[in-house]
């Protein structure tokens, strides 16, 4: 299956195609390479921060094991989009129990963000992993292995991917810059590494968008694009609320939701980060974060973003008022 002849999104265009190209995870890569060379693969559990190479490693394994037609024997599911037990019971099971196509011993199932699977779904998965070992191997990606139930962990070889540092990111970005004939200044690399928080996917996106601003990517261009990606308005909204100006804060919220089209979860995510930048006592920050988490949870329960975010603002108003007196 040729998904697309065009490869313009750099995250895909420059995603390593071979295990040996993966940056910053040397120990893990050499172990995985030996599995692939011997064509013998246990179930795998990859844990680690976003953008550290987990999905890429899984894709590389599939490519190197299966060669050209790797997609025929490879199923990829993202658990945070399909987190229910039904997916596991039907899609995964149906796939796992049929024989692989061509001359390979088994198929591969990649469950991305598998810590988003409910416990029920994980239990269903555990049975499936056991029953179809002869036709299928699983690779589970997650941020925190502790969110994966014990029985699954014990069936997997666990690999912990480390967060990438500035050097790793620089190494990879320079490769892209060379291929794209960009100038990438050292302070530009530093800035991207800082803003991306060690997430290679974000780093690549920042570089690509900064490069459309100008062909010489430096610190300034990086901060310019990342400012767009992180609107000032969230902080302004919080400051208005802490100042007791509820209605004005609420209007800012409507602007974020409506004109900028941000999702409620994303706004709360930014509220969460901004709390650390606010000029309020540290213990209060911790309490606010707890509260924001509660509203975020309510959203995942199906509550409406507008009411919940307004309620969050009301809470900030109350805290602001207490701090004044």
């Amino acid at each position, binding site marked *: 299956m040729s998904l697309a002849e065009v490869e313009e999104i750099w995250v895909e265009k420059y995603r390593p195609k071979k295990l040996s190209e993966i940056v910053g995870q040397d120990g893990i890569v050499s172990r995985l390479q030996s599995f692939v060379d011997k064509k013998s693969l246990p179930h795998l559990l990859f844990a680690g921060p976003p953008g550290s190479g987990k999905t890429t490693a899984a894709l590389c394994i599939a490519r190197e094991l299966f060669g050209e037609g790797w997609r025929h024997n490879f199923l990829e599911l993202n658990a945070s989009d399909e987190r229910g037990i039904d997916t596991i019971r039907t899609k995964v099971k149906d796939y796992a129990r049929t024989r692989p196509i061509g001359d390979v011993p088994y198929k591969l199932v990649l469950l991305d963000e598998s810590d988003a699977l409910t416990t029920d779904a994980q239990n269903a998965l555990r049975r499936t992993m056991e029953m179809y070992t002869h036709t299928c191997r699983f690779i589970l990606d997650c941020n925190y292995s502790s969110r994966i139930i014990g029985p699954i962990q014990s069936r997997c070889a666990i690999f912990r991917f480390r967060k990438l540092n500035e050097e790793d990111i620089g190494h990879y970005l320079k490769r892209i810059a060379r291929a794209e004939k960009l100038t990438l200044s050292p302070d530009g690399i530093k800035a991207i590494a800082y803003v991306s928080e060690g997430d290679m996917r974000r780093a690549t996106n920042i570089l*690509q968008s900064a490069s459309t601003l100008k062909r010489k990517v430096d610190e300034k261009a990086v901060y310019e694009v990342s400012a767009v990606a992180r609107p000032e308005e969230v902080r302004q909204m919080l400051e208005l609320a802490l100042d007791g100006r509820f209605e004005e804060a609420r209007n800012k919220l409507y602007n974020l939701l409506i004109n900028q089209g941000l999702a409620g979860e994303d706004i709360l995510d930014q509220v969460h980060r901004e709390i650390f930048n606010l000029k309020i006592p540290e213990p209060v920050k911790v309490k606010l974060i707890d509260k924001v988490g509660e509203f975020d949870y309510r959203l995942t329960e199906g509550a409406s973003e507008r009411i919940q975010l307004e309620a969050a603002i009301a809470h900030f108003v109350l805290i602001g008022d207490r701090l004044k007196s």
Partner: protein
Amino acid sequence: MFEIWTEKYKPHKLSEVVGQPQAIQWLSKWADCWRMGKPEKPAALLYGPVGTGKTSAAVALARELGWDLIELNASDKRTFDIIQKVAGTAATTGTLLAGATGKRLVVLDEVDNVYGTADRGGYRAIEQVLKQAANPVLLIANDQYSIPWTIRGLCFLVNFRRLTQESIFKTLERICKSENIEAEPLALNVIAEAAQGDLRSAINDLQAVAIGRRHLIIKDVVVYRRDKEVNIFEVLGQLMQATSGRQARALLWALDRPPNDAIDWISENIPRMLTEPADLERAYEALSRADIFLGRIRRRQAYGMMGYAGDMMTAGVALSRQGELKHVRFQAPSSGVLMGRTRATRAVRDSVAKKIAKRCHTSSREARKHFLPYMNVIFRCDKNVANRIAEELELEDAEINYLAGT
């Protein structure tokens, strides 16, 4: 002998549908194809704002061509089985038992309301029905983007637009004539304008003011419109004066709105009346709880939760007050309207995120957070790159416009 005018004056033929020349033309074209055989797209999706004539057009079409009409709407439980049973058979079985011209028209109304666990499989069922259909199927929805593209792709798209004030006015005039009511043009124009393109609500308003009258003047209309609004505001005022839970919850009925609508009115106005931040926080905590119940209702069709939602947004809010009340001017909820208007935009945002997620091996949430903002920059700054990315992701025009911010 009381008859609802919106029923009484329903169009009997497609040509009688008001103010949608283009949509009617497309729809007839599609129906003609069916008369000659099976068209490439066996289904048509009629989409557009409320009260613009979508359902009326469907009914008129069936009547005009002598097709049997089989209808499902959101009040039915749309599980896979039911849709499959009702729509599936009608659309796929032979024509022996059907009407004179041998066709059955299956109408799935309010398709954008297929959600929740109880409707599990609803979209899948619809998709399957469309793929097998041997009879014409019409899908009706307010917002085309809230329908999965897998389904949209199988449909012939027919857009119904908001009616112009003029065509609403003319319809009202015609109704007055046939009802023997002498109406001031200005009065009808006020009604037509207030309807904002929704013919059904205009006719309802006309009937409400004109019933039992021989003459209709502007003053009648103004008084009616004011009564309609004043009532809600009065109830909101009483709500914040309520001192017992029983008193407060009784007011929900007086608001005369379903809880999911009432919460918008309450949250728009109540916060502005409260003077104490602590009261504000408590009131919102109650609203937040009410909203959670509404969410559970939406998700799981747990209509039994409606009572809790209603109580939290009335009694919960009223009893959270300890401090003084401020006197404010009440207003209609702004956010609800705005959110409604941007629903289409948000649907586009989510469909872009989904495409990116699929292409770049990640989740939609991650795509929304860490791809969309940068894509925005790229689409605004470099048209060439943007075009290639659009091709790579197979983006549609609306999605490209969303990313480019146009």
